[in-house]
């Protein structure tokens, strides 16, 4: 559907020449429009990674017309940065909805200064940090300073358990912590929405009135305390107002509801037959009433089923398209201000993780 102006290996040019070349490229397309709602800075690994990103960003840019600056520092020992115009994407109607530039070569510490003159004026700047932990990457601070929002993906960065805790703590310690958001959060939005919908049904209302057990299910081979499960748990705990009590085992927690009733959550890994999936389901129980809700993901489907004792009260199946990093990015770019619900959920998840296990 979309075409890039410069497929293959486009010529490299100085930063100064980039804007002029872009104008010229747009001029060659009859009826082209230059529309942008934000600047998107992305850390790219190497040339191939940048080319792949330029292609794969299309669905994101369809919803969020943007100027994209892909940054790959360190390709030359000198401080000089060069630009390649990877694309001014063309729509069938003849419009241009994205301008993608690849800045490469200079020192990571100079990435902010290199990007600055190429930002479209007056538009918000979002940084999507990827590929390496910000703690080890010298370019992070330079780019984060330019950004109104910093997006990072703990799943892509491979941060689980204690690594996830350290990463989250680091991002919360940034000068403007409320601007940093983990893309694992939008990955869980569909789960959150399903839970919210289920809570509104007559059976759901009965369940929620006495909810006292929640099981978070990772796929076998994945850490039970993975980022996705932790964020969902943090969200539920913070929304329900449950208070932390004890941690009898590494993956089991005793809590207390606002009515001072006992409640428990447990993280476990089960064989789900979907090795690529990190998180695949959860079970909520009102144990005294024998009522439970099971949510299980199966590929691109999700099934929600209420049970009373051992009898099914009916299952509902819907589409559940995978929320990969790009889909999560597209969703997150809708928001241009701090997200208090995320912060509360993340804080609750961190408190869980930091609770000492009882001897």
């Amino acid at each position, binding site marked *: 559907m979309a075409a890039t102006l410069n497929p293959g290996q486009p010529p490299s040019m100085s930063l100064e020449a980039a804007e002029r070349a872009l104008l010229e490229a747009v001029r060659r397309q009859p009826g082209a429009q230059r529309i942008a709602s934000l600047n998107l800075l992305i850390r790219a690994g190497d040339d191939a990674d940048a080319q792949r990103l330029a292609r794969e960003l299309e669905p994101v840019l369809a919803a969020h017309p943007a100027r994209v600056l892909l940054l790959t520092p360190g390709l030359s020992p000198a401080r000089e940065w060069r630009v390649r115009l990877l694309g001014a994407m063309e729509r069938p109607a003849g419009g241009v909805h994205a301008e993608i530039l690849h800045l490469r070569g200079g020192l990571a510490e100079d990435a902010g200064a290199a990007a600055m003159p190429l930002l479209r004026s007056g538009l918000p700047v979002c940084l999507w940090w990827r590929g390496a932990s910000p703690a080890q990457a010298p370019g992070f601070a330079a780019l984060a300073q330019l950004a109104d929002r910093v997006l990072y993906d703990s799943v892509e960065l491979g941060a689980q358990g204690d690594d996830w805790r350290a990463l989250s703590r680091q991002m919360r310690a940034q000068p403007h912590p409320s601007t940093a958001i983990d893309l694992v959060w939008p990955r869980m939005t569909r789960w959150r929405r399903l839970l*919210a919908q289920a*809570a509104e049904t007559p059976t759901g209302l009965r369940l929620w009135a006495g909810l006292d057990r929640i099981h978070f299910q990772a796929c076998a081979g994945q850490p039970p305390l993975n980022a996705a499960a932790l964020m969902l748990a943090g969200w539920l705990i913070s929304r329900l*107002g449950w208070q932390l009590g004890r941690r009898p085992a590494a993956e089991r927690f005793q809590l207390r509801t606002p009515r001072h009733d006992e409640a428990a959550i447990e993280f476990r890994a089960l064989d789900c037959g979907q090795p690529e999936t990190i998180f695949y389901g959860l079970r909520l129980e009102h144990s005294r009433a024998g009522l439970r809700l099971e949510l299980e993901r199966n590929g691109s489907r999700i099934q929600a089923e209420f049970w009373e004792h051992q009898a099914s009260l009916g299952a509902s199946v819907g589409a559940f398209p995978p929320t990969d990093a790009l889909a999560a990015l597209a969703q997150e770019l809708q928001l241009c201000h701090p997200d208090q619900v995320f912060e509360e959920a993340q804080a609750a998840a961190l408190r869980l993780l930091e609770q000492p296990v009882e001897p």
Partner: protein
Amino acid sequence: MTTTLTPPGAAGAPAALSESLRAGMRLERTAPPCILVIFGASGDLTRRKLMPALYSLMRAQRLAPSFAVVGVSSTEWRREQFVEEMRAAVRDLAGLRVEEDCWQSFARNLRYLSGDFDDRGVYEQLKQELAGLAPACGFNLIFYLATPPSLFPVIAGHLGQAELNRPLPGAPPEAWARIIIEKPFGRDLASARQLNQTIHQVFEEEQIYRIDHYLGKETVRNILVFRFANGIFEPIWNRRYVDHVQITVAESLGVEQRGRYYEEAGALRDMIQNHLLQVLAIVAMEAPARFESEPVRDEKMKLLQSVCALGQGETAMAKAVRGQYGPGIILGQPVPGYREEPDVSPASTRETFAALKLTIENWRWAGVPFYLRSGKRLPKRASEVAIVFKSPPYLMFGAEARIEPNTLVIRIQPDEGIALRFEAKVPGTDVRLRPVDMDFHYGSSFGEPQPEAYETLLLDAMLGESMLFARYDFVETAWSLTTPLLEAWEAQPAANFPNYAAGTWGPAEADEFLAREGRAWRRP
């Protein structure tokens, strides 16, 4: 964005729990649990629009998992037949891919009742069915009248007698019952009033959702955003800067299989009385106090009340033009004239084109004419609003410079977007001017598909958001504006029909109508 959490365990209020869980959610809106009852469940509207919209919403999890549909129709089907017919409609008529597991999940809560709409027993049976479903599916009820308008009073009356105009016994206090009706809402002022009175005997106005699917279109809603979320347009949106406004809804299709209906309706009733007057109100109204249903509908109503009456008889006719298409060429293909269409009288005097001039008597618009036109078998399908601005007070570029007025065009369909036409200097040593368009296309600026109007409107009705639905007073005022012209035209049938060839922009009288005022129709 976020709300203060009221832990449900402490407050025990379902609404607080729901609000808390939904806080900060990025995805689209979702409907609360409810049961939708469709009267006319075997009809065309249900097959082509309602069921595909519901399936799409269900598949995307925008309906509650417990959502249920009860179809009611005089067609003698068993439940299994109903389910199969609806499945075929979703697949064949709407062209949607039916995914087996999603369909089974959706079909699980499809129910069907066959019977005569005037049979009291049908409503008792319906009540029992609903009472059986409610404990699992929720107590909220929506009745969709996808039937001929003559049945609206009949069905509403029986619903009242069966006490289905209120939540079922045992329902929680926040439960609701609503009714959705399709246009036409009457065929003149008297019948519209009668219909409103009849329905009001059973349902309160806030329970009634009158669908005008035109208002569900994304671009119509965007007019509100365009006008009131931008600071630069509102200051020039008035008589001081605007010369006139043209609202056009052009269709290239003829009456197709709707000849019988169209013989009764005509262009003025079918399009202008409802769709075009709704668009006029949105384009010309004052800023509402809040972006909520009642403030927006209040402002639309105030605007319509400011529209100057057309007068009676010849006075009304002088402010309008009517036409009927004869044979012609559309998109390179010969097409028959209106009188040769199925179910149309060979001597029909029903108008297939109508244009009229309205003026608005308020401080903002006094003296600014609004020209409305709609017709069938015009050269292309196009709906747009054109705001034509006044020319500069002094032209300093010489006598040879011909300056076109600035025009802001809001395209409603197809190719939804907004274009601003202004003068620019042609590059060169001479000063030569040329009008250019600065053109914004939704399709190329935002690559996301626009939702179907029925999906938007069904969801709105379930969520209790009535902004895009017509209120009784708007309907009656719209009829009071158009009824005198309808009566005048019916009293003096046109002698020159057909007076435009299919594939042209309407009768010559329409061009002369504007030329007399020194203006011309825009070609969409």
